[in-house]
């Protein structure tokens, strides 16, 4: 399955994966800055439009973690929950830009 990662600088990284591959592990193997060992949701990615709907809906656990993701969008998912299928051929996974001001958000309560 051919997919494309778009990293934080906008660089497109085409990757050829296999059906069943975990998107997070794939990204890491190709040197992209996605961490799995951190407190979630650091494997947060934006999924390209037609492919978003071809993913199984997030379970409660994923939704709870996504709530904590900065720069959350409608097409946000956790990379560690996405397994490649033929239906994801051509999918693009964009890494959210984490900027200097990311943590300034009046709405989200700062948990600890």
């Amino acid at each position: 399955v051919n997919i494309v990662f778009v990293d934080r600088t906008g660089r497109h990284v085409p990757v050829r994966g296999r059906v069943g591959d975990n998107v997070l592990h794939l990204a890491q193997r190709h040197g992209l800055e996605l961490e799995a060992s951190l407190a979630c949701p650091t494997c947060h990615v934006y999924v390209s439009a037609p492919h978003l709907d071809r993913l199984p809906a997030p379970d409660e656990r994923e939704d709870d973690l996504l709530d904590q993701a900065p720069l959350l969008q409608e097409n946000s998912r956790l990379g560690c929950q996405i397994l490649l299928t033929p239906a994801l051929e051509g999918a693009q996974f964009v890494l959210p830009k984490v900027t200097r001001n990311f943590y300034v958000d009046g709405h989200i309560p700062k948990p600890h």
Partner: protein
Amino acid sequence: PRLCVVGSGPAGFYTAQHILKHHGGAQVDIYEKLPVPFGLVRFGVAPDHPEVKNVINSFTQTARSGRCAYYGNVTVGRDLTVAELQQAYHAVVLSYGAEDNRVLGIPGEDLGGVYSARAFVGWYNGLPENQHLKPDLSCDTALVLGHGNVALDVARILLTPLPLLRKTDITDSSLAALACSKVKRVWLVGRRGPLQVAFTIKELREMINLPGSRPVLNPADFTGLENAIKDAPRPRKRLTELMMKTALEKPGEKTAEVQAAAPREWGLKFQRSPQEVLPTPDGRRARGVRMALTRLEGSGDSAKAIPTGEVEELECGLVLSSIGYRSLPLDPAVPFDTQRGIIPNSSGRVEGVPGLYCSGWVKRGPTGVIITTMNDSFDTAQSVLEDLQAGVLDMSTSREGFGAVESILRSRGVRPVSFSDWEKIDAAEVARGKAAGKPREKIVDPQEMLRLIGH
């Protein structure tokens, strides 16, 4: 360039990591007052949340790398001054976090049975200074004051069935105390309403699903909230919906059965502000808390709790105040904003002191999870890197780094603990835990740690 970081928690390590990654010539030394590293990842994250501690793997990689060195058992502000560090290094980053807590400031706060959640967390997590807490768990009702994740953590540890706790890295001595605990009811009490809770949904869900405990939420606190959250951001909306569902929906037959049989319970109380901890007849221990009932002015995060004049007494034998951690000033040479409890700074550059930076809770205030601190640390590291590039930092003389510090420490009788020393302590803890089926049995006495490494 030689740089140093004070504090080996997430802020310290992430700042070091980012500098090392983006500057091939930098050497970063990390100083820590305890013999052991990792700060709140080791001493703050709950024992039943081991996956959150995975960041330790990343920090370990950094500490083991060639251009990074760890020096534990060195208390900056006592064994070394910040001025001495500034002479030895081109730049100094303060990442020493928040070791204290906000106080309630009410009568009775010093009675037996009243503790800060910070001390209670330190106690069960093996923080040396809290090992003698001996919290009194002989009462049936505990009040936790505060509606953040730390409040949920302490409530959960008080109510989690022992067999589940036994498999974690919670200390043996706190396990023994919890095994004798009579606490079977925990109220989490906040000054404001459901829309102002600071805890997050994952932790709330965990509490709702806690085996052996029944959630008790007052439906009256939640009626009519649908309108208020209609346009709320997703995290607030989902969190409120979960509380509403728990409070208002009739549970299915099976759940109802399980809940009715639960030996313990916990609940949320809102719009109650503590006025006084009431004493037992002998005047020595807490027997309850008098609360002022409040009403809310304004809405959302900025809503304020105003006393209505009405009061209520809540009976309890244990009070845990979870109203926030607090940083302390480190050294007279470092400016400190006592009101806000932070070091005055701009993007991590300490105001008025070139070459001095800060990151983490001591920079922004004591809120946020590890990832919040990660991004904040990268922000400070960026400032350091920019200043290195732009020639803002005085690079004209080479600095000796630890070379200069070593003799000062020796003359003061201070012997630093290296990272490989920590790895010996780590191995010992893991070995001790293995016998008991725990990931580790933490050593809680710094002297024992030092003896173990032959110091």
